[in-house]
């Protein structure tokens, strides 16, 4: 039941601190005749193949005044391709139980495919059609636009989305990162097929393509398939340059009035870039503030001690050209101000005093030990390996990552906390009827 990849998979996971087995050694770099590269973890325990890929160039590449183009393009890739119209393409997928989906993020346009290994050839053929020959026909174009519009209407007065949209637009005004990835009701009708064709021509190229595959397939077979799917794409992408941007609005509060009993709050400030030497220490410090579940300060102070909220969290968000610390919670209107002052108090305390030795030790242990849980299914492994590549890391980072966390000292943590939380000023957006804010 197991081949070589099976043993490698065991090595890919856990026991990182003590024995340091190599996760990277499980990954084969496959380069096709045509020069397309993929990372492969070969494993025959389950008769499946999972693939993920990403092109650099997502919603940040949307034309000026037309947010949603990348999302619409992703949404149309499986809506008719080559000889198939939309219905024909979906029938072909369903007849062989092939799973395929595409999506756009700020910085990437990505796709996922999963197939039973017995349908491998058919799955790669359909993937080739979607990537290389999507038809972008008028029927699915109109339909998917109307689906996007319905989704936006559904969220129009949802406190979570309202607070999130406001947070986004105040944090990066006048920059593509401040615009909605899934489009805007007012400008959706102006999107054209020409916009999609331009974006595809600019983004779908081999120079910024990353691929990861996990499952019952060998390197030689995979090489042939990735050549078929991606080999005919242009060599070079043609992306609009995106300016680096700082976080705006620290110290501001904006309330969107919605008639609901609870206030949904988003807060944030400038973060630390992914390639910054302090990023790992910042990850540890954020875990202590609001990244962990039961152990985080925000969970303890806001939820457990005071019963102010069900959900409270903070996270580090990094883009190719920006970085932020952000977080959120939802508290009944009468206690929204109290929640916010507890959160601000914890941020200020971490900025001034840093974490305790015990907090630091526990956060590092959790982050190191839990890394293994990201590698226990084929689709999760494919996702991790694609993400690593799009972030610009080599396969050795799989082994390096836990060592970097283990090496974070109290001095590092305090420095990162000072940088991350600084003067503790936050941009705060609220949706609801908060009292005293």
């Amino acid at each position: 039941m197991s081949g070589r990849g099976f043993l490698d998979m065991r090595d890919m996971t856990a026991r990182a601190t003590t024995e340091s087995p190599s996760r990277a050694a499980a990954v084969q770099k496959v380069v096709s005749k045509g020069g397309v590269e993929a990372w492969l973890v070969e494993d025959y325990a389950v008769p499946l193949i999972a693939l993920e890929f990403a092109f650099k160039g997502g919603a940040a590449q949307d034309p000026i005044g037309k947010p949603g183009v990348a999302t619409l393009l992703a949404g149309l890739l499986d809506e008719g391709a080559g000889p198939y119209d939309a219905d024909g393409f979906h029938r072909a997928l369903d007849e062989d139980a092939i799973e395929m989906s595409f999506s756009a993020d700020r910085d990437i346009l990505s796709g996922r495919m999963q197939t039973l290994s017995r349908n491998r050839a058919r799955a790669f053929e359909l993937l080739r059609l979607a990537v290389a020959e999507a038809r972008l026909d008028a029927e699915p174009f109109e339909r998917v636009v109307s689906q996007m519009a319905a989704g936006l209407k559904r969220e129009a007065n949802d406190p979570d989305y309202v607070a999130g949209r406001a947070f986004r637009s105040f944090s990066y005004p006048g920059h593509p990162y401040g615009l909605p990835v899934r489009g805007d009701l007012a400008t959706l009708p102006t999107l054209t097929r020409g916009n999609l064709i331009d974006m595809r021509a600019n983004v779908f190229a081999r120079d910024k393509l990353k691929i990861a595959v996990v499952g019952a397939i060998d390197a030689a077979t995979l090489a042939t398939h990735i050549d078929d799917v991606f080999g005919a794409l242009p060599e070079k992408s043609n992306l609009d340059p995106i300016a680096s941007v700082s976080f705006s609005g620290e110290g501001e509060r904006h309330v969107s009035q919605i008639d609901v009993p609870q206030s949904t709050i988003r807060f944030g400030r400038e973060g630390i870039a992914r390639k910054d030497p302090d990023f790992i220490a910042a990850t540890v410090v954020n875990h202590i503030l609001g990244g962990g579940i039961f152990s985080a300060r925000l969970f303890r102070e806001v939820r457990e001690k005071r019963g102010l909220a069900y959900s409270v969290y903070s996270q580090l968000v990094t883009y190719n050209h920006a970085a932020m610390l952000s977080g959120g919670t939802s508290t009944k209107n009468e206690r929204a101000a109290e929640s916010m002052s507890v959160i601000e108090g914890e941020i200020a305390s971490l900025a001034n005093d840093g974490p305790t030795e015990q907090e630091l030790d526990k956060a590092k242990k959790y982050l190191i030990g839990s890394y293994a849980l990201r590698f226990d299914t084929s689709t999760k492994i494919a996702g991790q390996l694609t993400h690593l590549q799009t972030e610009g890391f080599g396969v050795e980072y799989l082994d390096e990552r836990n060592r970097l966390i283990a090496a974070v000292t109290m001095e590092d943590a305090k420095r990162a906390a000072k940088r991350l939380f600084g003067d503790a000023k936050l941009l705060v957006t609220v949706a609801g009827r908060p009292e005293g804010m």
Partner: protein
Amino acid sequence: MISMSLGQPTAAQGAVSLTPSAPSPAKPGGPAIAQAKLANGLDIVVIPDHRAPVVTHMVWYRNGSADDPLGRSGIAHFLEHLMFKGTKNNPQGKFSELIADFGGQENAFTSNDYTAYFQRVAKDHLAVCMEYEADRMKNLVLTDEVVAPERDVVLEERRMRTDSDPSDQLNEAVQAALFTQHPYGKPIIGWSHEIESLGRGDALAYYDRFYTPENAILVVAGDVEPQEVIDLAQKIYGQIPARGEPPQRTRPHEPEPRAHRLVTLADEKVEQPSHQSVFLVPSYRTAAPGQAEALEVLAHLLGGGQTSLLFKTLVMDDKLAVAAGAHYQGTAVDDTRFYVFAVPAPGVTLERLDAAIDAIIARVAALGVNEADFLRAKTRLVAEAIYAQDNQATLARWYGASLATGLTIEDVAHWPERIEAVTAEDVKKAALWLDKRRSVTGFLMSAEPAASVESDAESALVAG
């Protein structure tokens, strides 16, 4: 395809979790499963998956919101939160800190028919997870100091999920209308005014009744040897004294439904109307042999994705809707729900959409199904069982939920064959369950400030 959860009545189907990160339930399965029962009545299921040195440890209790005493709705879910408050020997947070130190993850969730607790850790730490769950199965300690703020947490959870969301308020009203007698009609999280009245005494009485080894199922999935897991469980869980008989669930039967009910909610926060119909149908446990499987195939054929009958007809061909689907909630102790939902295209009334949905269902019941559609639906369902093998946590949830609702290991393991055995004639017959008189239809509507529906605004109206 654009992924949308538009108008899908998810709240009543899923489980309510301790924290906002628990995964959602799924079906499927196939590896060599081991099963055992300890002398104290604890059931054990072991699902080996040797691909990664990780283990998923779950304890399921055969009680959920449908077992909440009258007037005490929400107690199953509230107790689930309170189970993290410490025991006689281990103060609050001690085990959670241990699990976190290993890099483990934990959570818990409550559904209509079960309550479950889980940890995901490197396999070396399985014993600690067992000690954690065995300890809180018998030694829970609650004080008013921890109960009061946690009740506020649950009320905030309810405000977040339901009280700020008109579509969830409609879902609640639809369920309450569908089940006139049976407790599936009550929200898992409970009604606000009843949650407010829940205290330490309610929680401990409920705990005493249901948290016993006879009522629990241990599910362990991952890089483990079955016999070692059973031996370890014998050593740790085996020390919990038997209580004698498992607790009995006594729930009133739902009478045969005879009248269609329309429930409408109009709210000025709603900008996108939506439609849902929920039918009372048998579950995997209550159905005659083959019936639930036929309903499963029917749900897939009617509304499982973009080639389904509802999507093809309403969205692609007739342009009456922008989304449409169906779902059979088969994993339930008692008679359960079959959902049909759609989101109207601009300018299409909910009444017109409703009539079109009725016509599609009637056509299947009268004329049966297209052979290609039928085969495609079965192919995809059977493949789900293989895809599930890629995820030990999915398998653990599938087996746990099935056993907790009265099914057996064999029922789960042979599910793909039973789906294969469904005939086109079975599916045609299954469509007879989708009789309008067995259903509640829910309309989520915009409230125009000056419109005639003003009296409906902010409240749910139940009409015959």
